[in-house]
């Protein structure tokens, strides 16, 4: 990391970030005394330490893979980096506000794909004329030409993710965070979006890619971080980290 620091400019700096969720939930623990270290109980209040102090630096041109088991804090960290989830400790710095693209971040389901493209584009700061101009290009990229007039509630989850990625990728982002959004796309679309991602990363930006597919991380990323129970377990080149992770959980690097 230090070697890189001397050559490339840092674009994202995460300084001991902490995210804690407070959730009201009633009910008893399965067994008294047996408690998960990350969930603390005070009456009906459960405090979940999603991120327990993570620090990292991302440099210009980095495509960083983020791996870890379910619930390890990947999405929480990404949302914190994008500023969508407030921190409970520490600080996160970036050259500009990162854009988050994630699963479940649906748009307006009742509206057609086309209207969602327009709305998403306007929210990203395009003018009406600009988005009109880009509309065909975005539809083309998504490969959803035949369905673009249907309301998005009729889309499959894969189609929804494709559309969302196409909207977000239509703009140059300085910092783009992609949270498992491509896991549901078919292989043809995945190829297209991986190419686009590399392009976006090359244009001065930095990309974070959360994925359970070690193969797609190895294909796309130059670096990777491994989150485990809200803690940074490892970081380094994509191959090192994926290898270590694969050895620990018994996964396959081609997966």
């Amino acid at each position: 990391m230090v070697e890189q620091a001397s050559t490339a400019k840092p674009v994202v700096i995460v300084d001991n970030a902490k995210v804690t969720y407070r959730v009201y939930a009633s009910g008893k623990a399965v067994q008294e005394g047996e408690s998960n270290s990350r969930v603390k109980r005070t009456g009906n209040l459960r405090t979940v330490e999603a991120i327990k102090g993570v620090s990292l630096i991302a440099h210009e041109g980095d495509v960083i893979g983020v791996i870890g088991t379910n619930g390890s804090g990947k999405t929480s960290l990404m949302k914190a980096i994008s500023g969508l989830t407030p921190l409970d400790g520490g600080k996160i710095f970036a050259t500009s506000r990162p854009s988050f693209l994630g699963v479940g971040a649906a748009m307006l389901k009742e509206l057609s794909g086309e209207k969602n493209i327009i709305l998403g584009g306007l929210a990203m700061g395009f003018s009406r004329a600009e988005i009109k101009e880009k509309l065909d290009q975005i539809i083309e990229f998504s490969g959803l030409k035949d369905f673009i007039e249907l309301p998005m509630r009729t889309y499959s989850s894969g189609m929804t993710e494709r559309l969302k990625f196409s909207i977000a990728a239509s703009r140059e982002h300085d910092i783009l965070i992609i949270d498992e959004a491509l896991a549901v796309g078919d292989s043809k679309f995945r190829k297209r979006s991986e190419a686009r991602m590399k392009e976006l990363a090359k244009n001065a930006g930095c990309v974070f890619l959360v994925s359970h597919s070690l193969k797609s991380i190895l294909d796309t990323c130059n670096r990777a971080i491994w989150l485990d129970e809200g803690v940074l377990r490892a970081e380094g080149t994509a191959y090192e980290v994926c290898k270590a992770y694969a050895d620990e959980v018994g996964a396959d690097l081609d997966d």
Partner: protein
Amino acid sequence: MESHCPRQELGERLSKLSDLAAESGLERVGKRPKLSRYLRDVWIRRAFALTLSQYRLLATSARSRLGVAWLIIVPALQITLYGLIFGLVLGDSRPGNFLPYLVVGVVLFQFLAGSFSDGARSISSNSALAKSLSFPRVLLPMSAMVSQWMKFSGLMLLALIALPILGEMPRWSWLMIVPVIGLASLFALGIGMMAARLTVHFNDLSSLIPFITRIAFYASGVFFSMDRLTDAISWLGFLVWANPVSVYLSLARDVMITGHPVDAWMWWVGAGWGVFTLVFGFFFFWSAEERYGRAG
């Protein structure tokens, strides 16, 4: 130990991270932008607020057969119902020129109550949008306000049809409804923004909103004259000017129907309430800007 970093030397190296960030000119993520930049961002994305409200209205009406016509049918039914019930119940204590009085009251009250409840919902009902895209959050209550204007155009059409039928002939003073709506909108946007922030802090508030709206309905002289209330209970006299809803209703009646003139100073009261609520509401909303991502 504060840091949970796996390797001690890494933790030490990273302890100077904040300094490095300052050195490289990075900004803290999620930090509320300066007011001037915030307002500029809002201005750049004004088309977003307009389009969002337009599409939302389209989406809600696409599901029912009569579509946008419901925006006129429901208040028409309400006026008929209130006219029958309150007309009978109130008997001789009805305000003069009762039906036109009621029409203007219901139409304007719908507008203000709608701004309040839609404003309160504006963050939570758009949480998917707010969680996936970063834009100045105040655009959401603003877009709720635009929807209210669209709905209000339907209500106004209803009033313009109903009033001549009820014996109020069109006249030039009707044009003065535009500044009345202008002032009422300042107030409506202000309470919309306040309600939006409050429902993010206390989600339970959304259950209270119909109740608050009901209280406002009874305390603002929608179907009775405020004079009767203040004559009966004299210490309530302050409500005539201290209740902005009733102020806007009186101003609207002053310009729209005969028999209910108001003093000219009421215009100043209306303007004062509007500007105060808008400015206060905006700063109240804006000061919690960093928190809205977690809503919903």
